[in-house]
């Protein structure tokens, strides 16, 4: 009895919460996506089978949304991973106390509340005299509206860069000192050391960061929602996850389409599960499960 009761006791709170807010929602998302549930049918939704998915394919804006999503993920990823790599390398090349300071600074975008972070962007990019960019360039504009994509990618990228930076830094630190000494003895320049010693050893972390960030970018829309809300104009920065959110939970006229939104979310959920399973395979699950050395509970 004790064998099951004690672990069950320890696991129950987490299990309850996970079931309530992960398992049930996954199932619910799938179920909702097969109904026509919306404001007018909230109390009596009917089963429409794959109707929402057909609607999704018939959506004349789908191409635009897909293109936006691709652009957003690809460019932000490029910035994230590239900047993370650059920061990790550069901060490793300077004396470590100074390097730490810089790394810490790059954490600010991540730990600042998103609303404050976005407010700073808005302030810097607004019209003169407040807006610094307008002031510097001498062209008074709302630069978020003028260059929405650059802003969305930079703002998201600066938040994400610290992730790659930290992972890559610890990977660089894990490289044995002897390798560096050997390279130095062999007469390698700094650049050669970086290229021949560090970068090849970073290929796994880079793959990991890229995979991880791809998934989180696909589903993240918080900063876009706050910065441009998918605009300006014709779905300029509306990405898949934001469109799902808009359809299901936010609609100026009060007529929300939960069913269709759920169908879009369900696609993300499926991608999420697939990618996570892929992680499990790649990052060698076996090694993570070490048998406990105590058998009584």
């Amino acid at each position, binding site marked *: 009895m004790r064998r099951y009761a004690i*672990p069950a006791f320890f*696991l129950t709170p987490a299990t309850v919460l996970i079931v309530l807010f992960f398992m049930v929602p996954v199932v619910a998302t799938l179920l909702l996506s097969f109904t026509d549930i919306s404001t007018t049918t909230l109390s009596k939704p009917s089963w429409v089978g794959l109707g929402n998915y057909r609607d999704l394919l018939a959506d004349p804006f789908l191409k635009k949304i897909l293109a936006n999503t691709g652009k957003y993920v690809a460019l932000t990823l490029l910035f994230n991973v590239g900047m993370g790599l650059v920061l990790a390398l550069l901060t490793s*090349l300077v004396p470590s106390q100074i390097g730490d300071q810089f790394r810490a600074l790059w954490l600010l975008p991540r730990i600042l509340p998103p609303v404050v972070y976005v*407010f*700073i962007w*808005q*302030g*810097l990019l607004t019209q003169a005299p407040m807006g610094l960019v307008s002031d510097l360039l001498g062209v008074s504009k709302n630069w978020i509206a003028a260059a929405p994509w650059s802003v969305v990618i930079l703002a998201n990228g600066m938040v994400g860069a610290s992730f790659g930076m930290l992972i890559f*830094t610890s990977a660089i630190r894990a490289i044995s000192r002897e390798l560096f000494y050997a390279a130095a003895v062999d007469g390698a320049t700094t650049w050669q050391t970086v290229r021949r010693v560090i970068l090849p050893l970073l290929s796994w972390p880079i793959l990991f960061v890229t995979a991880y960030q791809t998934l989180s970018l696909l589903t993240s829309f918080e900063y876009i929602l706050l910065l441009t809300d998918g605009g300006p104009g014709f779905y300029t920065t509306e990405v898949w996850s934001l469109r799902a959110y808009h359809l299901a939970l936010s609609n100026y006229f009060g007529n929300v389409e939960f069913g269709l939104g759920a169908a879009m979310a369900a696609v993300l959920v499926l991608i999420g599960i697939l990618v996570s399973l892929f992680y499990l395979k790649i990052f060698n699950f076996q090694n993570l499960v070490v048998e406990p050395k105590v058998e009584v509970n």
Partner: protein
Amino acid sequence: MPIRPPSWRLILIVLGLITLPIGVGTLWLLLTALFNQVHGLLPVGNINFGNWRFLWEGSINGRPPIWVALFNSILFAATVAFIEVLVASMAAYAISRMNFPGRRLYLGMILVLHAFPAVSLLIAIYYILRVLGLFDTLFGVILVKASLEIPLGIWLMKGFFDNLSWEMEMAALVDGASRWTVFRKVALPLVRPGILALGTFALLSAWGEFILPYTLIVSGKSWTLALYLQSFLRESFVDYGMMAAVGLFYALPVFVFFLLGQKYLLNIYSGGVKG
């Protein structure tokens, strides 16, 4: 890198340049919050305490008083962090240290969920809170926020528990402790660094949380500071000075954390998000 390149001063300048925007942004917030008006980064006029009037004027344009939002934010962040640390530690302890059927499966599930895009479940979560009668309550959002981060928390804490000495655990059992006692009196105190890391991570993350309260809270009495500040963001008539002051007020605890525990933060985030 153990060998410092000869041109490291040059590298420092490059680093400084690419990091400049962060410094500028922070400075902008500070100056705008303090002065009458700011042209770019040049303050114009005197220090303006009027920007901070939201602190003593009860309500700005029908918003709930900021103290309500502050109280809610503190309650939100503290409760989320507490639930997250407690629940994740318990589960992580069981997974790391106990023998039970289904253990591998559970760990596998945690791993999948850890990388899982939780925001895509928002639509369904909205329904579930409604069914539970927790929609538009702070408690409901607290539960959701804590739950969504629990897989990550379990993962992190498992790493810390894995490193505990088994002999210590055996000693405690032989000394007469039950597993619960071992957990409380021996294991938890010894993974203090982990608890601090997860706790800080959870606090910061909950403090900044926006999407969940924005979507799941609709009445002013449950507003958090994120919603309070956001309500200014979309307004057509803006008082940048006051917004910056609100923003600074909201971000102050984060800056304090940042200044006091930089090194520590670096460790949290490199370990905290798996590696």
